[in-house]
């Protein structure tokens, strides 16, 4: 820990002219990246700019088509992940690469040398955790941990290999602001000890607070090198996006209608031990307003969406009401026939079938509400008209409605799956993570469409982990934490810190869970909620 960076200024890693193509798509078109020793370096760029591709190349998960990488001044070929690890490169991925069925100790043991077996791992892991100030429960199965705990495990697993370059891909997207601050302290300590950090984020305030150098990517090219401490968030954003992103137009003043989506004491029982049970969720969304549901991933968002969309049924019909009709026991099709529309988080494989054309994908949510499948027969011409209309109204960039969904970029497919339901003017819209992994221009277009839909009288419910997004579009925000939903408060009366603290309710609830576990089979008796 006391080792200071060597005197010479040979960079730790220098990538030159990295090219990577996937078929006709150029993910990286000759990218340079230099990270000095002991430096916290930011890699910035929009979704699809090539950040993930670049770190996968550094991690040996992808082979570049051209370019060189030097490590400590020596050229290296990073053929596979084992080579990367041997060099001292550790990566914490956005979607954690942990083994859910194994214990924390076993997960970490796998990253250590062959002398570590399941027998001695637990002791080693606990020692390691206290050394780095990252306590982890060594004997728990990873599948039972919260997202924040999993990230600690993943970081600890990297640190266990004594890395010289630690790469973190959007690490704070799963953390509360308070947890993020703890993470930054750890990273600064590591950097002071000589470890270089490559930090990927699109939260520009964090980048300015933490990093001392930045490489900015746009569409597979380096567009700027910067010292984030000397830039403003706006100037960094401009460099990332390249074009001016239109400001959102707030809706014209309009009166709110009656409640169109009412959730009344919705509760769920989960047989999967990894799922989060919903507890007494109550909520009203009136016509003309947008209600946001904030929360960290894994606090019941998936379960809530499934119940609202009718993929899972409520215990009583009156638990969910759509336009004053009991809908809790209705399936997705019947709810759509009541005028509701739903857009799930996963675009491919949930909202859309990857190998189906956009035309065929129109049937997925519209077969019962568009006449495209009247009498049980598919009318492709009708579905094609829907697809054409969505493509032109929402500026979906594609060769045509015959294109398979999987060929569209994230932003374009998201515009398609939201547009598919929006052109039917739904009375109620529930959307989960509307702009997750979407480029800035598409995100702005989607958010504007949500605002406009509400202005026309629809009730819009937005589930999102992106606080910035919720503060931009929502009229009221409620926080979902461990399956409980707090009250929906007007945005004007809320600060980010308040919401962040409520999101961190996870810590309180974790204590509750530990308490329950200690009490043994204390099912159904929960301590008063704080």
């Amino acid at each position, binding site marked *: 820990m006391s080792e200071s960076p060597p005197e010479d200024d040979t960079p730790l890693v220098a990538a030159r002219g990295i090219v990577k193509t996937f078929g006709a798509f150029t993910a990286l078109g000759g990218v340079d990246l230099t990270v000095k020793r002991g430096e916290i370096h930011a890699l910035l760029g929009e979704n699809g700019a090539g950040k993930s591709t670049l770190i996968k190349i550094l991690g040996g998960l992808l082979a570049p088509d051209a370019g060189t990488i030097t490590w400590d001044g020596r050229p290296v070929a990073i053929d596979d992940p084992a080579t990367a690890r041997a060099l001292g490169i550790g990566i914490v991925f956005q979607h954690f690469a942990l*083994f859910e*069925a194994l214990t924390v100790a076993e997960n970490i043991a796998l990253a250590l040398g062959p002398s570590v077996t399941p027998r001695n791992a637990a002791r080693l892991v606990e020692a390691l955790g206290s050394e780095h100030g990252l306590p982890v429960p060594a004997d728990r199965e990873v599948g039972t941990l919260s997202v924040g705990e999993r990230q600690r495990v993943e970081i600890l697993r990297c640190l266990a290999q004594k890395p010289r370059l630690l790469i973190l891909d959007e690490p704070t997207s799963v953390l509360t602001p308070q947890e993020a601050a703890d993470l930054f302290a750890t990273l600064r300590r590591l950097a002071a000890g000589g470890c270089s950090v490559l930090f990927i984020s699109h939260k520009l305030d964090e980048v300015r607070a933490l990093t001392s150098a930045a490489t900015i990517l746009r569409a597979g090219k380096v567009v700027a090198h910067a010292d984030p401490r000397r830039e403003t968030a706006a100037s960094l954003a401009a460099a990332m996006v390249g074009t001016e992103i239109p400001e959102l137009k707030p809706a014209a003043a309009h009166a709110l209608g009656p409640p169109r989506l009412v959730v009344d004491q919705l509760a769920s029982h989960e*047989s999967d031990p990894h799922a989060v049970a919903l507890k007494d969720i109550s909520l009203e969304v009136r016509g003309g307003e947008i209600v946001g549901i904030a929360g960290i991933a894994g606090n019941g968002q998936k379960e809530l969406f499934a119940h609202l969309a009718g993929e899972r049924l409520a215990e009583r019909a009156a638990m969910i009401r759509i336009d004053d009709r009991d809908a809790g026991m209705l399936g997705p099709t019947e709810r759509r026939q009541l005028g509701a529309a739903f857009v799930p988080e996963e675009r491919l494989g949930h909202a859309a079938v990857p190998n189906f054309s956009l035309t065929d994908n129109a049937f997925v949510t519209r077969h019962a509400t568009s006449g495209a499948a009247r009498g049980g027969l598919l009318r492709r011409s009708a579905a094609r008209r829907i697809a054409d209309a969505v493509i032109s109204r929402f500026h979906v960039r594609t060769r045509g409605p015959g294109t398979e969904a999987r060929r569209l970029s994230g932003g374009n497919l998201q515009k398609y799956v939201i547009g598919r339901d929006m052109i039917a003017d739904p009375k109620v819209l529930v959307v989960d993570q509307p702009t997750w992994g979407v480029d800035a221009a598409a995100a702005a277009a989607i958010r504007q469409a949500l605002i406009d839909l509400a202005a026309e009288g629809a009730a819009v419910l937005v589930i999102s982990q992106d606080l910035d997004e919720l503060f931009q579009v929502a009229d009221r925000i409620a926080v979902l934490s461990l399956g409980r939903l707090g009250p929906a408060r007007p945005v004007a009366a809320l600060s980010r810190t308040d919401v962040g603290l409520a999101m961190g309710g996870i810590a309180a609830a974790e204590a509750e869970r530990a308490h329950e576990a200690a009490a043994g089979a204390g099912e159904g008796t929960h301590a008063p909620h704080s």
Partner: protein
Amino acid sequence: MSFAEALLLSVVTAAMPLMLAALGEMVAERSGVLNLGVEGMMVMGAVSAFGVAAATGSATLGVLAGVGAGIAMAALFGLIALGLAANQVATGLALTIFGLGLSGLIGAPLVGARREPLPRLEIPWLSDIPLVGKMLFGQDALVYLGALLLALLVYVIRRTRTGLVLRAVGDNPEAGHALGIKVLRVRLLAVLFGGAMAGLAGAHLVLAYTPFWSTGMTAGRGWIALALVVFGAWQPMRVAFGALLFGAVTILQFHAQGLGIGLPSQLMASLPYLATIVALVMIAAAGRKSSAAPAALGREFVLDR
């Protein structure tokens, strides 16, 4: 030997092919590979073991041939399902059809030949313990080998790094790859081990359980072994227990008439298959299956850079 002793002895003998094949398949499935070709590997093991044993007069060479045939069959599965990432269900089915056909082809000249079953090795003193002595200590060499393999598997899977890597690959192959584990190599080795065990099971079937070869003689035991893996919740001891249970059902059907059960023999013969269905349903209903199955079971892993 009393009737009860003989009965218990035969239960273990009947259970052994099921246990060996199921333990092998369990290892393959723990690595995330579903190989439905157990029946084909087992029947090829049986015909090879019998052919070589009959030709050379050596049971040891026969057993080795059975193991080798199982490995060769598993390698064919590995080539197509792992090397080319083809659908595991369909590839496994093809392997079973292939094994049943090829064993019939090679085995045609062997039909009708008989040989002495494997000798039972009675351990002095211990085998004289009343009732269970013969069952535990009066078995053939392969049964002792099976018991040894079972103990070894319990230890390796839970306690060693090899077992840890195996479980990791079956849980999340992508994460394993990112950690530098050679996922396809681990999976191939697990599949080959499964083949070796299925081949050994076939060898035991034809060298100890029945002393002759007949076409298709595995009679669905490979499939029952597959069900036993589910029944045993991917745990070696539970799989072995399930195999004994099924061994008992098999023996029961032979002695049904003697016990005064007047059902037609064909209906008694369908008992193991019905019992398999009942066992699968019970396990699934108990909800153990969803949590115990390796998360990546049956999912292809493509090395793509």
